[in-house]
């Protein structure tokens, strides 16, 4: 819009000012020239008039200047106010004229506008805060007329969201203009969980649990009453939910307590300082009474201090589970396993202590091992006689009888040869029975954990060459070729040379057994901390559904029925147990019709330290 008024006044002022300066100068010069030139006096009079006019112009310019500037200021201020810029102020020490009065009025007006704006902002803010509350909130004056109400209150009473309940009295809201509770509230200052029936715009009264407080002014006069109300049904629902959740929690707790108590083994939960936090029924039965709160060493072993080699402390220090066996009370053996219970941040909250009486297991293992040793001896003795005498007879027949038969009738010679052949079968089958006895004994020992390895450095090349030599009769007989691929500098493996040889010979024998033509290939390589050996054949391969079972006991039985023979069905299970004992892995890959590759890994002798560091961890429990 611009400042047209002041601009106009300015132009008038400037024109008047120029005129006021120029006119007297022009007049005076003209007058001097005229007098000097001897001009007629009327002309000089005219020039004097011009000077007089200039003086008048100067006076006019002065007045315009005096009045126009303040008017311009006032106009600018009014424009500011119109645009909301309320800061600014006129200095009016004394009201001298209408302009001063106008300025003063402007000052008062902006001051009022400022207050009004702040009040509006405050109320808006307050309304927002109240609307954000999930509970119904209403502010009444001393007469019970609504001054403020939040959205929730309006909603619950079915009132218009914009206008809400403002201006309505208690008579409308609860049906009584001044109910007793309101009177009490005004007197006592508080209202605590009073159930009040609010009347909605439509429908039945709503029971609301209402609490309230009285606000007084500076003189102590009651001014406002603030009420917070919640639908009683909502509270009931919440209570019900809480009761349900508690009940579910109790059910779950009971379930786990039952589970805990159902365990036959004594299980306790220990604090890091040895305090027993929980104990199941078996633990209470074994150690008597209520264990909770007692020190573990006191309760379990009647000691006054921490036991030597305490597994719980070890678990606490290492954050790992432990398992130790203790010989207690004569021959009884107890295995104590401890597991860390970790908190959400991985800190140890408690330790589970699980005790198990393993006396019977250990006795049974000893018994089984002794039994098997006895049985295998008992089996081997007659087998030794049978095979020995058979072989002896075979030798006697070939050495002493055969030479005498060169002149015998054809029938006799044929019969004699058949005897020799049949005795050869007896020898082969006897040898197989011997292997079976050995394998059963080996596997039983392995499974009972009774077999200890004689660990040492094993040269891989010697191992592979030895196994190839040991099976040479087998693969040469079948016309197979044997290939071997080993890197020049193969690090030594860490293991029991005899046992690793047993594994490799077994894998080679298998490969040969199931391959009719082609090549058996043995490959050695280094893989990280391990040495890996592959035995690949070009045999018939293993059907995919059989693959997961090849390392199971007597899996080969079907093959044997189909005419494949000489196996005990225990070779691969023994290999698996032996490699497992070496902390290695054994597995098979096979493509039907193309062949199979059996692979195993054992540790490198020069990387033992790194293995020690990565010792397998037993489980721990997180989230206690």
């Amino acid at each position, binding site marked *: 819009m611009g400042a047209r008024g002041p601009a106009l006044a300015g132009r008038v002022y400037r024109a008047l000012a120029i005129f006021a300066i120029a006119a007297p100068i022009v007049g005076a010069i003209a007058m001097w020239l005229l007098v000097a030139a001897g001009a007629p006096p009327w002309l000089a009079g005219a020039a004097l008039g011009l000077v007089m006019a200039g003086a008048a112009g100067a006076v006019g310019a002065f007045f315009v200047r005096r009045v126009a500037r303040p008017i311009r200021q006032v106009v600018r201020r009014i424009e500011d106010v119109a645009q909301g810029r309320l800061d600014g102020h006129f200095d009016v020490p004394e009201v001298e004229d209408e302009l001063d009065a106008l300025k003063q009025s402007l000052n008062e007006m902006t001051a009022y506008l400022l207050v009004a704006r702040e009040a509006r902002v405050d109320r808006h803010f307050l309304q927002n805060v109240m609307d954000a509350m999930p509970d119904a909130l209403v502010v009444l004056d001393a007469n019970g007329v609504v001054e403020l109400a939040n959205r929730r209150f309006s909603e619950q009473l079915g009132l218009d969201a914009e206008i809400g309940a403002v201006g309505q009295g208690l008579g409308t809201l609860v049906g009584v203009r001044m109910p007793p509770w309101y009177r009490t509230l005004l007197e006592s200052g508080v209202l605590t969980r009073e159930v009040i029936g609010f009347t909605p715009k439509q429908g039945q009264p709503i029971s609301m649990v209402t609490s309230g407080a009285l606000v007084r002014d500076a003189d102590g006069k009651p001014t406002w009453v603030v009420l917070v109300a919640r639908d009683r049904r909502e509270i009931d629902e919440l209570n019900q939910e809480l009761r349900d959740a508690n009940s579910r929690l109790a059910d779950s707790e009971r379930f786990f307590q039952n589970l805990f108590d159902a365990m036959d083994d004594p299980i306790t939960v220990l604090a890091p300082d040895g305090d027993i936090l929980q104990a199941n029924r078996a633990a209470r039965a074994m150690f008597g009474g209520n264990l909770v709160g007692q020190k573990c060493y006191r309760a379990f072993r009647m000691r006054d201090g921490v036991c030597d080699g305490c597994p719980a402390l070890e678990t606490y220090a290492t954050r790992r589970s432990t398992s130790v066996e203790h010989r207690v009370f004569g021959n009884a053996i107890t295995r104590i396993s401890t597991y860390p219970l970790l908190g959400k941040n991985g800190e140890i909250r408690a330790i589970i202590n699980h005790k198990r009486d393993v006396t019977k297991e250990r006795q049974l293992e000893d018994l089984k091992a002794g039994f098997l040793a006895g049985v295998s*001896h008992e089996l081997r003795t007659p*087998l030794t006689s049978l095979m020995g005498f058979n072989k002896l007879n075979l030798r006697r027949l070939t050495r002493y009888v055969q030479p005498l038969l060169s002149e015998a009738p054809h029938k006799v010679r044929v019969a004699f040869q058949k005897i020799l052949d049949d005795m050869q079968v007896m020898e082969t089958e006897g040898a197989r029975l011997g292997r079976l006895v050995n394998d059963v004994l080996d596997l039983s020992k392995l499974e009972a954990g009774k077999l200890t390895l004689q660990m040492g450095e094993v040269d891989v090349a010697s191992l592979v060459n030895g196994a190839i030599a040991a099976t040479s009769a087998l693969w040469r007989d079948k016309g197979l070729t044997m290939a071997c691929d080993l890197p020049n500098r193969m690090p030594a493996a860490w293991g029991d040379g005899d046992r690793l040889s047993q594994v490799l010979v077994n894998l080679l024998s298998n490969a040969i057994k199931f391959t009719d033509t082609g090549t058996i290939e043995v490959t050695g390589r280094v893989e990280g901390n391990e040495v890996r050996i592959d035995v690949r054949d070009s045999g018939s391969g293993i059907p995919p559904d059989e693959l997961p079972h090849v390392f199971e006991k007597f899996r080969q039985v079907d093959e044997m029925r189909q005419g494949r023979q000489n196996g005990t069905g225990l070779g691969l299970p023994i290999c698996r147990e032996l490699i497992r004992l070496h902390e290695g892995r054994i597995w098979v890959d096979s493509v039907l019709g193309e062949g199979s590759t059996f692979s195993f890994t054992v540790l490198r002798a020069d990387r033992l330290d790194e293995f020690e560091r990565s010792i397998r961890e037993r489980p721990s429990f997180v989230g206690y």
Partner: protein
Amino acid sequence: MSKRILIVDDENYIRLLLHRTLEDLEFEGVSIHFAEDGIEGRDMARALKPDLVFLDMMMPGLSGADVCQIIRRDPMLAGTHVIILTAKGQLPDFPPDAAPHEYMTKPFDPDQIVSRAAAVLGIDLDFEL
């Protein structure tokens, strides 16, 4: 004095088998003697001072391992060669000064028994095994 072999085994047929296996050596002048358990084996070893002893491991009374130790630690029996016959994997740890000279696993091969015995006794067999 002729060469002597002592066979110590509680199993009747194993003794017989060993006897039959080694019978060829009897033609070479070797005498073969038998003991039926560890105690008899110890006593006969002391009395007989054999050149070679075949010793079974599992026997009642004194085990083969015990008899082996007694023989090996007896200065009078320094010339006695001890072969232990054992099932695979049943060999205990012997003290270094009391270990057998060698051992063979059951079921054993008769030819191997003969050839070992002949070698220990320094006898050339006149037939191919």
